[in-house]
């Protein structure tokens, strides 16, 4: 097995050998490696196939920008993870990784045929091809596209890992632990500011930490040595928290940032167990220092995507940080000085290399150093083609013309096993723009730079476009002093010597003798878009960068165009003949690198997904086989099936029992608002449509609450407990909103009213007993209570004692039966319920759920707000004009009741429907028409509630129908999929219109 690890470094622990599997084969690396560095040490460059053309692809970079080396990690159904960047994944014992997007394997991939038919699949291929015939889309095209779409495989079972969230506040957050970030953090923390420094890598130090060129020195030391000392210093600062393996995912307004901390991804399987995998930090910082550095640019030339072609600085990092060489015969192709550092480093380790520099000449310390070492440099040359299928084995270079627009002279063929490219550096302005910052364009080296516009946020170091060390340190120190309003002198006498780059030449799309149509000059490696695609998009009329991006999919892969966006912009600018700075950029959206769902969700999974509210009787319902319905967050018994009953049978039995003898409902979930104060009556007058001043103490009244627009908002019964004390009930789902609305009016419109509102929904449990025998059960429970109709009539309230515990008993009814609602402090709710059941045994007291409740009230024509209304119904629409006071001067919504629209006669109005066939049950939501032959069919309304009534032995329904009030007796049709159902419009009250049962 080849070994490309050629020297020892302090970051690789050669005493700790780590075995891992890649594509099923076992390899070895060392602690400190990433998966990418370990693969390269084993001579493996080829790690995947490209998305569209299935071209062999190799590792390109050493960080978050990696487009090619994305792997599937693990094979377990619940723990496998796709699209993990091998360049970021730290190696651990037992790691299993495999390449993606290839079948049967990465070396021989059937999809590779796409490479040969590539002229047939240009940009926009899908949009153009799969348009016709239309019928093919669903059955042929979509299934085929789905088969080849997407990268990697998702886990198919729930994620067993633990994730966590943490909220923190800091004076200063520093993003990025390179040289400028370290300086900023030190300055802040030494000035007693609570500071957090985050870096996505395992250790601090950025690119400077492995810098070893003699021409770059700080205080007479190698810059890396100097920086290590600084890191030791900052670790001692008590005001500074350092979080490594932590990357900022999003930068929101008001300096609110999300960071992902990786806690176990670098640990072997057995050490991961029972530990938090990732923690999402929710950070509020008074000030944010962005020191995220810059990313090296690739160069765009024919076949620039072969395995073995990397970014030049990545070759340097693999060498000096990981001790791994990416080849033995390396060519570096550059337009700037930074590749010379790589070259000199390689040379010092004995790796043969030459430089192809597209600049006409260059003059700096680094270049002199390279020349003096005898490194061969081809100035004014470009790479025009590369060769080698699974790995690069040679390339061709040619001389550039004077203007750089074309190549001249003869091709020179050079053999190599690795090519490093450097097209300059792109400042990582993601954080700056996410925070709302704007960008400036610097023509000289064609970079977008943060435009300073905020006192809460600043960019320093190379993300601010400062590339040489002297510039970086001087400017960082000055800017941080100003930004934090401090006067730190630590770096006053720091002496920095570094090579200065004097010559620049940038060509976005390098010239070639071969026509562009026959080249493969890749811009976006992951999504396989080429210079040709960009030009095609322009030719077809696309101009906006946002459109070109979407049409060609450039920058839309999991790497979000970190390597490709600048080139796409540059080529568009060149082709369209406009200045690059005027084009703008695409939007930098969070997250910076992909996040797992688990990290975002944190602990809120499974039973912690949502709050569940249970009444104090809940256990009884569970024991007695109740099926539950979710009403808001409440669990309410839906029905209680007995002996294998289905829902229909259970509901029919419960409904019948409630009317024949007695039924009991857990009504604890109804919203309850305690209203007190000397203006309580006046307040109720203003919020309900009916009058309240004359309600006697000890009496109850039903009220309808409107929105200011006149539409029904909520309803419920309110009881006058004493002169200035009422208890309001609301619908279960509306409780919180009603309270908010009432508070809003009290605080903002009527602050002069002396009224206090308190939510007491959870404080009381309610058992509602109804039916002809309900009074007998009440008498058993409260033997001392005079329950005669004279003393305790319908719509009144009494206090009672159940074994010395105070109860409030309201004689109110939602079923049309004589009915008592017993309220007790919640802690006694379960006992109350059991006592009711016991007392009711001889009367076949039957527990019933929400479904039976709905049926019983529908028999009686009582509405359910939210089922029979939908926010567009006025009281008049509900045929409830009787509840709207004509005398009251004002109430919420009153004025709206006679707007031109609300007084229309042809509004949708609530009616009853009876099916011609009494056994036929309508579907709720079904449309109602009068004529099925007209086209288009005129829709008159829809069914809102529908049941089979066991007490009437026929099907009943409520519906809203246009002009329904005037249609009683009229025949209408409900067209269903297979038949038309004939119905007759009826009254909304189906049972006991005279209220005999209520007062019986």
């Amino acid at each position, binding site marked *: 097995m080849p070994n490309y690890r050629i020297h020892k470094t302090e970051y690789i622990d050669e005493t700790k050998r780590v075995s891992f599997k890649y594509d099923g084969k076992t390899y070895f690396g060392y602690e400190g490696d990433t998966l990418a560095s370990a693969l390269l040490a084993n001579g493996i460059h080829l790690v995947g196939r490209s998305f569209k053309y299935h071209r062999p692809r190799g590792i390109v970079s050493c960080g978050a920008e990696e487009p090619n080396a994305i792997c599937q990690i693990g094979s377990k159904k619940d723990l496998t993870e796709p699209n993990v960047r091998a360049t970021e994944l730290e190696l651990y014992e037992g790691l299993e990784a495999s390449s993606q997007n290839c079948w049967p394997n990465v070396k021989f991939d059937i999809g590779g045929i796409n490479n040969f038919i590539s002229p047939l699949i240009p940009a926009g291929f899908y949009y153009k091809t799969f348009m016709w015939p239309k019928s093919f889309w669903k059955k042929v095209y979509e299934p085929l596209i789905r088969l080849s779409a997407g990268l990697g495989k998702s886990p198919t079972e729930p994620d067993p890992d633990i994730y966590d969230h943490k909220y923190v506040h800091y004076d200063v957050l520093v993003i990025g632990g390179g040289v400028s970030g370290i300086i900023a953090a030190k300055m802040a923390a030494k000035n007693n500011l609570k500071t957090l420094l985050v870096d996505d890598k395992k250790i601090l130090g950025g690119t400077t930490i492995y810098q070893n060129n003699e021409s770059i020195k700080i205080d007479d030391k190698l810059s890396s040595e100097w920086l290590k000392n600084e890191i030791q210093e900052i670790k001692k600062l008590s005001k500074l928290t350092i979080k490594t393996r932590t990357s900022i995912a999003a930068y*929101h*307004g*008001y300096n*609110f940032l999300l960071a992902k901390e990786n806690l176990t991804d670098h640990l072997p399987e057995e050490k991961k167990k029972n530990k938090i995998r990732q923690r999402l930090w929710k950070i*509020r910082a008074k000030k944010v220092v962005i020191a995220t550095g810059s990313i090296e640019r690739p160069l765009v030339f024919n076949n620039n995507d072969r395995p073995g072609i990397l970014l030049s600085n990545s070759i340097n990092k693999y060498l000096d940080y990981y001790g791994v060489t990416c080849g033995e015969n390396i060519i570096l192709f550059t337009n700037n000085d930074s590749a010379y550092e790589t070259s000199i480093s390689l040379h010092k380790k004995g790796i043969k290399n030459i430089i192809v520099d597209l600049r006409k000449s260059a003059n700096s310390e680094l270049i002199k150093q390279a020349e003096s070492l005898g490194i061969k440099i081809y100035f004014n040359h470009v790479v025009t083609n590369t060769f080698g299928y699974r790995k690069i084995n040679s390339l061709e270079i040619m001389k550039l013309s004077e203007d750089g627009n074309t190549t001249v002279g003869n091709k020179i063929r050079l053999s190599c096993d690795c090519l490093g490219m450097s097209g300059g550096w792109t400042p990582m302005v993601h954080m700056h723009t996410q925070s*709302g910052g704007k960008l400036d364009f610097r023509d000289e080296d064609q970079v977008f730079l943060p435009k300073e516009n905020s006192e809460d946020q600043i960019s320093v170091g190379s993300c601010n476009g400062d590339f040489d060390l002297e510039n970086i340190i001087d400017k960082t120190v000055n800017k941080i002093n100003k930004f934090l309003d401090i006067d730190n002198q630590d770096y006053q006498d720091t002496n920095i010597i570094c090579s200065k780059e004097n010559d620049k030449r940038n060509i976005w799309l390098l010239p070639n003798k071969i026509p562009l149509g026959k080249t493969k000059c890749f811009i976006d490696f992951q999504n396989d878009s080429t210079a040709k695609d960009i030009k095609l998009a322009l030719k077809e009329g696309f101009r906006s960068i946002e459109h070109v991006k979407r049409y060609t999919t450039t920058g839309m892969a999991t790497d979000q165009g970190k390597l490709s966006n600048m080139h796409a912009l540059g080529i568009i600018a060149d082709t369209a003949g406009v200045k690059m700075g005027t084009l703008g950029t695409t939007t930098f959206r969070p997250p910076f690198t992909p996040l797992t769902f688990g990290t975002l969700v944190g602990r809120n999974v499974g039973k912690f997904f949502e709050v569940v509210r249970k009444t104090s009787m809940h256990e009884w319902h569970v024991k007695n086989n109740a099926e539950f319905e979710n009403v808001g967050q409440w669990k309410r018994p839906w029905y209680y099936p007995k002996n294998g009953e289905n829902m229909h049978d259970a509901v029919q039995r419960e409904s019948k029992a409630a009317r024949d003898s007695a039924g009991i409902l857990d009504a604890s979930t109804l919203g309850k608002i305690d209203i007190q104060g000397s203006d309580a009556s006046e307040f109720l007058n203003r919020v309900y449509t009916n009058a309240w001043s004359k309600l006697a103490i000890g009496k109850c009244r039903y009220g309808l609450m409107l929105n*200011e*627009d006149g539409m029904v908002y909520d309803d419920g019964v309110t009881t006058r407990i004493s002169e200035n004390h009422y208890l309001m009930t609301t619908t279960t789902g509306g409780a919180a909103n009603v309270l*908010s609305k009432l*508070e*809003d009016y009290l*605080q*903002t*419109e009527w*602050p002069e009213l002396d009224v206090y509102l308190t939510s007491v929904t959870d404080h009381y449990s309610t058992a509602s007993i109804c039916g002809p025998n309900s009074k007998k059960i009440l008498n058993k429970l409260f033997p001392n209570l005079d329950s005669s109709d004279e003393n305790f009539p319908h719509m009144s309230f009494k206090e009672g004692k159940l074994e010395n515990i105070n109860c409030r008993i309201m004689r109110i009814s939602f079923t049309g039966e004589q009915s008592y609602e017993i309220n007790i402090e919640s802690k006694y709710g379960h006992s109350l319920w059991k006592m009711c059941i016991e007392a009711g045994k001889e009367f076949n007291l039957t527990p019933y759920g929400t479904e039976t409740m709905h049926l019983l009230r529908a028999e009686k024509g009582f509405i359910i707000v939210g089922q029979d209304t939908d926010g567009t119904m006025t009281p008049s629409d509900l045929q409830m004009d009787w509840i709207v006071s004509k005398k009251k*001067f*004002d109430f919420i919504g*009153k*004025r*709206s009741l006679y*707007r*031109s629209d609300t007084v229309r006669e042809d509004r949708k109005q609530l009616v009853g429907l009876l099916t011609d066939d009494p056994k036929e049950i309508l579907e709720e939501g079904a449309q109602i028409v009068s004529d099925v032959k007209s086209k288009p069919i005129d829709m008159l309304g829809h069914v809102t509630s529908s049941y089979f009534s066991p007490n009437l032995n026929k099907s009943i329904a409520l519906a809203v129908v246009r002009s329904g009030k005037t249609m009683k007796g009229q025949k209408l049709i409900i067209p269903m999929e297979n038949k038309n159902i004939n119905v007759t419009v009826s009254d909304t009250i189906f049972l006991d219109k005279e209220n005999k049962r209520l007062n019986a």
Partner: protein
Amino acid sequence: MFLINCPFCGERDQSEFSSGGEAHIVRPKQPTELSDDEWAEYLFMRKNIKGIQFERWNHAHGCRKWFNVVRDTSNDKILSVYKMGEKPPVNYK
């Protein structure tokens, strides 16, 4: 995510608050005397300014108090907060 300085509780995360739309729209004292158009003006019409806007906010998951906020919608900066019933700061208009 805003940091809102509740006049009763101090600075809190936006997630504790709910927004109540434009501030200083007073409910007419005698709605019955208004024409449909005048009532509609109160009921439906709201400004949607790019720039300085006066808003109502409620500390829904805190003290439950309503208060007013002056916010620049072009950069989301909250310039001032003041209690219900108080006059808006004069330096913004």
